[in-house]
């Protein structure tokens, strides 16, 4: 049994013992300096009493030194170490961490049973003093059990486990195991990896301490005839009917023998197509499904192969939302010019990301309650409506809607400063045979950045013959000006929405902008900027963490922004039917199993959101690692063993209950401080009484 220290560095504090000695010396020197006219009489007095004073001072000094010594010792936190040996290592004891692979490839045949049996056997074979911990590994490392000598506990936690749905990443798990062993004081430490050691399992060389022995225990892998869907690519159709899309499925034969397979496409539970495939050994085949139409808002699709030895990689899930097409309304006046919206509509129809679902309405037919159905409204040279519709427009913008206004010929009497930027004035015409150019883009504006230098240059080639004067307000941002300095593009942010005003027409009436090639990128980028478009992810991988409200925003636009502020949590139904609750303020969901995650009532309008989660297809790869090389690489890059201080820190956690010694020292320190204070006060008081008595 020896004395050890948790914070041995504090022992340097013993140097502070010099302080009271120094103070004493300085004080003594100071006292010695007292000068007196003559020692004639003092020298006649016998010297015998001098020593008593010095002894008393020495006692005070000793008390103060002891006090400092004990404080330093208490801070160094001593404890009695029951371990034998100068190194603090416990001879004959072995600490082991079993790193157990639970990736989905362990579902193949009896892989998991083998691995579990090996782990249980290790537990059975351990000596009574030996300790074992368990780390489960797939894409993440999970500490199932810290180091323990209880075989029963280990058995019970191991037997309750089953393989998951994630891929294997051994590096992180081995390093986690090494960290668990870093604090161990056993004479022998080892990490035992039980896995099928797929080629994709080790992405980097794990760094462990050199005093840790690494042992790899591969299971007997059964080679299976397995085909897997390695990817599904979805592309919106390039045809005008935007509700169509196409699908490309990639199937890989991972077996060494040719395979006959059947690929089936199911949309919303209805089988759409079934194709026969003949797969050569190790080959990859792509199969396309074109012109798939969407009848509902959100489509759930499954691509599946016929069952083989590993069923998990035979399913691939995806979702497709027709609402990725941004609903856009073009509003025209009742006396619109011929072809007033033709250029606009054609340009919008050519946009791929986002795809706009365009509708046209005459202003008279527009009702206030219809407005939330659209994400973007283009007021194409109409008089701004007042009254109820005007208020509804203001609400639409404030709630996150986007408004593009072409201020042209139409007279503006109800231009509302509440949501529309600037104040319109008279029409300005260019001189005969001359034109204005749109130039002077604000370089820092997102639209200028999105358009790029080339497009803005091209835009300046467009000729504008007339424009409507617009006087910008204090909160408005001028995006571009005409060559005479007048405002061409003016933006205002209102609530969550944006309004962009172009002070000329979007047809050929006042300018030839619509005829310029740059009209398309100008319009598309302008609308992307207005809508802050977010695409809907069709599929996600298990293990990833997803922002659920991103889907809601992509589907419901402004509605989702309102929904994000609601107090009740999001309720999500997992593929296995479990209910998951997620706070709306941090709507992050970790995907753990393959299939469809259903988010109920994400928005006030009841938009249903579905997320498709798929396994990592590369985990089905049956290629094996060179295990010996894998172990050798880790051993070769092993770092020097952890220092004694690190061991002591670990021991500190274990021996926390033995801290009574430090506490006892602190109590003694308190008592001594009291005695010291009383003694010093007493001496001071005596001194002042003596001085005061003769003053």
């Amino acid at each position, binding site marked *: 049994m020896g004395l050890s220290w948790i914070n041995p560095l504090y022992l340097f504090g013993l140097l502070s013992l010099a302080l009271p000695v120094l103070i004493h010396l300085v004080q*003594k020197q100071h*006292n*010695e*300096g*007292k*000068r*007196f*006219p*003559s*020692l*004639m*009489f*003092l*020298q*006649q*007095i016998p*010297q015998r*009493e*001098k020593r*008593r*004073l*010095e002894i008393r001072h020495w006692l005070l000094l000793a008390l103060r030194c002891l006090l400092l010594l004990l404080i330093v010792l208490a801070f160094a936190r001593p404890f009695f170490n029951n371990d034998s040996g100068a190194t603090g290592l416990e001879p004959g004891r072995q600490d082991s961490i079993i790193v157990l692979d639970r990736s989905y490839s362990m579902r193949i045949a009896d892989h998991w049973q083998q691995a579990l049996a090996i782990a249980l056997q290790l537990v059975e074979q351990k000596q009574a003093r030996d300790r074992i911990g368990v780390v489960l590994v797939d894409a993440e490392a999970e500490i199932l059990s810290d180091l323990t000598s209880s075989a029963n506990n280990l058995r019970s936690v191991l037997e309750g486990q089953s393989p998951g749905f994630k891929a294997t990443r051994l590096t992180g798990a081995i390093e986690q195991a090494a960290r668990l062993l870093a604090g161990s004081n056993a004479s022998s430490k080892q990490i035992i990896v039980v896995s099928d050691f797929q080629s994709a399992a080790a992405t980097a060389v794990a760094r462990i301490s050199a005093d840790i022995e690494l042992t790899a225990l591969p299971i007997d892998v059964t080679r299976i005839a397995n085909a897997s869907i390695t990817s599904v690519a979805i592309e919106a159709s390039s045809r005008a009917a935007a509700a169509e899309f196409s699908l490309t499925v990639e199937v890989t034969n991972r077996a060494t023998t040719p395979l006959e397979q059947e690929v089936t496409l199911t949309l919303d539970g209805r089988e759409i197509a079934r194709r026969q495939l003949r797969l050569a050994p190790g080959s990859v085949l792509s199969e396309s499904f074109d012109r798939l139409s969407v009848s509902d808002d959100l489509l759930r699709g499954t691509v599946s192969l016929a069952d083989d030895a590993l069923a998990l990689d035979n399913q691939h899930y995806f979702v497709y939302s027709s609402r990725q097409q941004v609903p856009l309304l073009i509003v025209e006046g009742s006396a619109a010019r011929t072809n007033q919206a033709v250029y606009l509509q054609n340009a919008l129809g050519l946009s791929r990301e986002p795809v706009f679902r365009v509708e046209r309405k005459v202003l008279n037919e527009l009702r206030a309650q219809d407005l939330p159905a659209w994400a973007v409204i283009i007021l194409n040279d109409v008089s701004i409506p007042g009254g109820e519709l005007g208020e509804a427009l203001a609400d639409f913008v404030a709630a996150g809607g986007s408004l593009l206004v072409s201020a042209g010929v139409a007279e503006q009497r109800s231009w509302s400063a509440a949501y529309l930027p600037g104040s319109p004035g008279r029409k300005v015409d260019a001189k005969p045979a001359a034109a204005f150019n749109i130039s002077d883009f604000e370089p820092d504006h997102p639209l200028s950045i999105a358009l790029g230098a080339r497009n803005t240059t091209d835009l300046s080639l467009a000729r504008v013959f007339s424009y409507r004067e617009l006087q910008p307000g204090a909160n408005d941002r001028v995006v571009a000006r005409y060559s005479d300095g007048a405002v061409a593009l003016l933006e205002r942010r209102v609530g969550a929405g944006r309004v962009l005003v172009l002070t000329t027409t979007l047809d050929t009436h006042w300018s030839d902008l619509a005829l310029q090639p740059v009209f398309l990128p100008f319009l598309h980028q302008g609308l992307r900027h207005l809508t802050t478009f977010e695409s809907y992810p069709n599929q996600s991988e298990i293990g990833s963490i997803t922002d659920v409200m991103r889907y809601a925003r992509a589907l419901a636009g402004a509605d989702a922004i309102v929904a994000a502020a609601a107090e009740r949590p999001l309720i999500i139904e997992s593929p296995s039917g479990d209910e998951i609750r997620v706070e709306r303020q941090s709507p992050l969901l970790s995907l753990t199993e393959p299939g469809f995650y259903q988010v109920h009532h994400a928005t006030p309008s009841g938009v249903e959101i579905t997320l498709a989660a798929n396994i990592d297809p590369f985990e089905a790869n049956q290629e094996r690692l060179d295990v010996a090389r894998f172990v050798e690489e880790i051993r070769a890059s092993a770092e020097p063993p952890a220092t004694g201080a690190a061991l002591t820190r670990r021991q500190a956690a274990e021996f926390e209950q033995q801290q009574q010694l430090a506490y006892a020292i602190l109590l003694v320190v308190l008592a001594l401080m009291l005695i010291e204070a009383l003694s010093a006060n007493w001496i001071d008081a005596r*001194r002042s009484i*003596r*001085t005061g008595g*003769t*003053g």
Partner: protein
Amino acid sequence: MLRNKQSQGHLPGQRFIDPDVLTRIDNLELLARGVVDGFISGLHRSPMLGMSVDFAEHRSYMPGDDVRRIDWRLFARTDRLYVKEFEADTNANLHLLLDVSRSMDFGSGAVTKLEYAKFLAASLAYLSRRQRDRIGLVTFDNKIIETIPPSIRHFNMVLHALDRLTAGGASSYRDPLAKIALNLGRRSLVVLISDLYDTPERLLGAINQLRHRGNDLIVFHLLDPLELSLELGDVASVEDLESGVNLPIATDQYRDSYQQLIRDHRAELERRLGANQIDYIFADISQPLDNILFRYLSDRERQNRTR
């Protein structure tokens, strides 16, 4: 600023000037005048006869007498030569002997013993000047530092000498006083101002050298209150101002013995000096200077009356 202070053991209502106040007056003459004027009035008289307006007596003309002093009127009446003698207060010699050894440069209050001695000497000089005495000054430590022979015109020289005085080396009385005694001419009033750190035997031996030739001797013994009480606080040792010797002490244990030794020393000095017709005046330098002067002048007056 003058501060009123009732001093113990003296005339009730007598006003004295605190030494603290004196330190603020940088002109010694002004200081001396302030101390002396106001309460001096005919207390001091010279025992010598000399030139003055106050007629004392006639005596027969002796060869060698100044012819100018013959009373011709009396000669006309009596046909005998008489010379007039007047009661003079201007022809006494005042020798101020000032100890400027290092031990004098000590003071726990506003003034050191040396400063106090300066004030005292200046006041005595001023007093004597009023009486038109001749004033001389000798400063010494273990040797004679400076000598100003007595003269009626040396008052300012004495003040200047006092003004620039600084403490010297170790003190010794025998040799310097012996030399001074040799240089004392006519009968003088000799005032010794010192802290008298020596054994009474040796001190008396030294002072007695001045006693011959009919000199009147007054010894002012100056001590700081700290030298009387040894209230040094919590000091481990003390250092001798003159020798630099360090002596570890325990003041609280030493105090009583020390105070007794000082008392014995003073008593012994008073007894022995008194026995030799030497005036001994002890002065605590925390006490007002005019207090000391008052005592001194009272004593002198009493002695003159009895003389």
